[in-house]
């Protein structure tokens, strides 16, 4: 039986990789995929705790996290396509229209 902290360590490592991807990459779609990685690491945490604490609530919460991730994917990709049609580029550092 694998100890709980191994799952937590795996999820923390995936979370760190996602955060580094969000901070480092210039392409918006890669930033978006890193956000999906972060949400997945949270799901691993929730399901590991649900298994080791013998409670079903973690799995229920994971369903809602997946729901929010699907909604975010639909909305975020629509925004990315509109931004590309307007500016002709998808670099993060060129999206500064709302900066005052």
């Amino acid at each position: 039986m694998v100890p709980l902290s191994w799952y937590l360590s795996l999820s923390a490592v995936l979370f760190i990789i996602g955060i580094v991807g969000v901070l480092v990459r210039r392409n918006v779609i890669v930033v978006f995929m890193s956000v999906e990685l972060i949400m997945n690491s949270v799901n691993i945490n929730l399901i590991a705790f649900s298994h080791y604490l013998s409670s079903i609530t973690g799995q229920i919460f994971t369903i809602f996290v997946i729901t929010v991730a699907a909604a975010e994917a639909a909305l975020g990709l629509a925004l990315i396509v509109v931004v590309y049609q307007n500016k002709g580029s998808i670099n993060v550092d060129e999206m500064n229209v709302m900066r005052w």
Partner: protein
Amino acid sequence: MAFLILAAIAVASAVMVVSVKNVVHSAFSLVVTLFSVGCLFILLRAEFLAATQILIYVGSIMILIIFALMLIDIKEANRQRRFHHQSKFVIGIGIILVIEIILFIIPRSEFIESPEKLIARTAEAGGNIQIIGQSLFTDFIFAFEFASIIILVAIVAAIFLGKQPTSIIKKSSVIKDSS
């Protein structure tokens, strides 16, 4: 042992998602990561969520991302610089954090006995899906309905954004001209 193999695959392909130059290649390595995380859910005896993970993440979200990649100019995006200027600093901090986790958390972990209570309850109720369905439609019914409203709002907003891009372009160009 299965955990170690799946975790190694997940971490390696997650690093590829962040570091590979071609955007399409990083999308496909994200598929590998999500799939191995779904296999980890099976190890944790969450079969329904493993199926949901593969259906929704690998099936629909990745299809959406690849469609978005088709709508933009990937060659131009691949030709440009990958990273920001300050990326060395961020990567250094990330490596330090990962080393801390490996050095200090993993060796001090204790092997916990297999939790039998939930497994017994699941077998009594007739499976993982039954027990999730029962608590989803009794204890969490409000959250369930609220999640459906969130999805409805997101769909309406996405359709609105995708419907008439030309009018949005006109408006933004008017704003740019006036300023």
